[in-house]
């Protein structure tokens, strides 16, 4: 019998959700067949059977379990598949009846032989002996005259913790006369409640954190990109390997050069210090292949790669990420980001910084527009770039200089195909 475990997709993945079982409980499966679709906080991906046999599903669809936990078994024959125990759903504190509150199971790190009963429960009788509460919560309840029996614990296993007592202390009336449970707030009839995917929940959390804690300001420039468009065409037609160089690739190269020149931008604000990054790694905001969301695959050490090399690498990283099969490092370690909505026709927009980075470049569409060249009105190609800046890390002048440098490089694109200086 072989165990199917929740795989670890990225360094940061700690748990995953079974989005869908592609096989039924009891199905005979063959090594290499897709068993299920798994979702982590960053992407979704498929897992395959590593053995032949009958599948026995342990963790139902929709359940989040930690990395490494068994989610199914594959038995040698159909009859053997049933494992001894079916793992229960992750216990939900709220729903656990308190009368049955048992000591929490310890994890592997504590004594392996420690099978004995827990130490005797404290003998001291208090008015709220029946409630599970932390020592601190009991002390606070005593000091504030809060009756623990009137509080619902929010800690593990329904334990009453400090915050619960403090919250109860703030509304003494409520403690005395518990309101008749108001009819659970019903969603409006014309609203449908939809649970976010883990990726969407992560985006919501991180973007809120960014917009509420990172002081943003924005700088916009308009670039004349006739030369860049022309050069891209030339590259496509004449340079092997450069057939698929995109404007984003050229901007990535330009940003790498500009970040080298203005290292203040390639930094973070952490714990009251500047963290200057030694590597230049640029994240590219892209949508996942399936569903709604946002991924930021990262091309590392962009400053050390020429345009063609980084174009190829960017394409590979993006493909892996969008397909939900990122390699380790693909989704982390960025020091700056680029978000290009040009292909959707937007003129310009303001992007939200992806912390702990301190800048993100929002790229608009390339458009034909009247431009003034040497005092003459002409039709030219223009593109608007907007830089979002973390004002804790650098300031208006640096933001303007950095963006001006990106503009200068894009408008003189030969600088983007110069060979990389040897170290």
């Amino acid at each position, binding site marked *: 019998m072989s165990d199917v475990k929740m795989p670890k997709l990225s360094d940061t*993945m*700690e748990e995953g959700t079974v989005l869908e079982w592609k096989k039924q409980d009891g199905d005979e499966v063959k090594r290499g067949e897709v068993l299920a679709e798994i979702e982590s906080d960053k992407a979704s991906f498929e897992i395959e059977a590593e053995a032949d046999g009958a599948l026995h599903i342990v963790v139902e669809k929709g359940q989040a379990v*930690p990395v490494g936990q068994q989610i199914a078994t594959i038995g040698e024959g159909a009859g053997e598949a049933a494992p001894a125990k079916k793992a229960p759903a992750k216990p939900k504190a709220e729903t656990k009846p308190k009368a049955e509150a048992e000591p929490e199971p310890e994890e592997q790190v*504590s004594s392996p032989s420690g099978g004995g009963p827990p130490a005797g429960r404290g003998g001291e009788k208090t008015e709220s002996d029946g409630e599970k509460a932390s*020592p601190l919560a009991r*002390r606070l309840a005593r000091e504030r005259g809060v009756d623990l029996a009137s509080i619902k614990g929010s800690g*593990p296993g329904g*334990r009453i*913790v400090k915050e619960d007592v403090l919250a109860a202390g703030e509304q003494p009336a409520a403690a005395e006369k518990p309101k008749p449970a108001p009819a659970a707030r019903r969603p409006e009839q014309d609203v449908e409640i939809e649970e976010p995917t883990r990726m969407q*929940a992560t985006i919501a959390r991180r973007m809120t954190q960014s917009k509420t804690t990172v002081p943003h300001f924005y700088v916009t420039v308009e670039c004349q990109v006739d030369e860049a468009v022309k050069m891209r065409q030339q590259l496509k037609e004449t340079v092997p390997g450069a057939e698929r160089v995109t404007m984003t690739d050229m901007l990535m190269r330009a940003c790498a050069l500009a970040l080298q020149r203005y290292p203040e931008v390639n930094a973070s604000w952490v714990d009251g210090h500047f963290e200057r990054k030694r590597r230049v790694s640029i994240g590219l905001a892209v949508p996942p292949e399936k569903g709604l969301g946002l991924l930021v695959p990262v091309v590392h050490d962009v400053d050390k790669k020429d345009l063609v090399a980084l174009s190829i690498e960017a394409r590979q990283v993006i493909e892996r990420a969008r397909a939900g099969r990122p390699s380790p490092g693909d989704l982390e370690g960025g020091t700056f980001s680029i978000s290009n909505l040009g292909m959707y026709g937007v003129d310009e927009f303001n992007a939200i910084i992806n912390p702990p980075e301190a800048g993100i470049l929002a790229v608009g569409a390339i458009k034909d527009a009247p431009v003034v060249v040497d005092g003459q009105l002409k039709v030219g190609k223009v593109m608007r770039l907007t830089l979002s800046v973390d004002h804790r890390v650098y300031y208006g002048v640096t933001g303007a200089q950095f963006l001006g440098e990106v503009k200068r490089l894009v408008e003189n694109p030969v600088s983007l195909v110069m060979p990389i200086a040897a170290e």
Partner: protein
Amino acid sequence: MAEKLFRAALREALDEEMERDEAIYLIGEDIGKFGGAYRVTDGLLDKYGEMRVVDAPIAEEVIVGCAIGSAMTGLRPVVELMTINFSLIAFDQIVQNAAKIRYMFGGEVGVPMVIRMPGGAGHQLSSQHSHSFEVLYGMIPGLIVLAPTTPEDAKGMLKTAIRDENPVMFLESMSLYNLRGEVPDGDYTVPIGKAAVRRQGSDLTIVAVSRQAVLAAVAAEKLEEEDVDAEVIDLRSIRPLDWDTITRSVRKTNRLLIVEEGWPTYGVGAEIAAGVQERCFDDLDAPILRLGGAEVPMPYNQSLEKAAIPSADDIVRRALKTIGRNGRGAA
């Protein structure tokens, strides 16, 4: 101030102390001509000669016994055992003599001696050469047990250890020898029995020992992404323990996680957990949790070894459990 390697900071402490006091001498295996298995004593033989940098035979009980005798008669030996794993051969000398002589001689004779010992796992040295024996020595009255984690502390604590009138077990994590950090120039000391708060925080206290204190600081950064503000205490001194710093922190955060690389059963975490619940019972908002190495002989296989040692991610997970949360995204 200059950036130096951990091992260079140790060497600097030895060099400056030997220059200051002629009673100080070094003894150990391969510390002279070879410069030490980890190059901590490099060049000291040339500078101080064979009388003060003694290449000893491969016989740990002889080395430590010799050091104890010379310490009793006025010298100040600094022993290097090639690794802490070999200290078991000298365990009798350390426990029965070094730790007890001051008491048994009514305080008339002391053993001012330092035993430096590289230790810890992570280098595929397998089950017999990967120990963390903080606990083995931490339980012995009469010994002082120190474990620095920064180059600055390495120098300052080694100087303090050399100047102390008692036997000091000086634990050096092999993984930290190439750690680089600021080291103040010239003479300074770091007191025995003082833990260091490496990061201020309000949600939970992570007390960690030796290399795990370095990983705990990394874990604290990751926890910040989870909106958890962890306070990190680097224990530094295993015996005596700095209860003041630990209890002050727990009274602030109300939650405690203790991390060590060694086996957790009867471990540093067990000792601190017991002491904290005695002192801070009414300040605790959650059970005190521990994290330690897997309770197995250390595997040679690289992946298994990695799995047997607490990682920064393990610390994050354990910290979230202390807070009552399950992990990334699960608020």
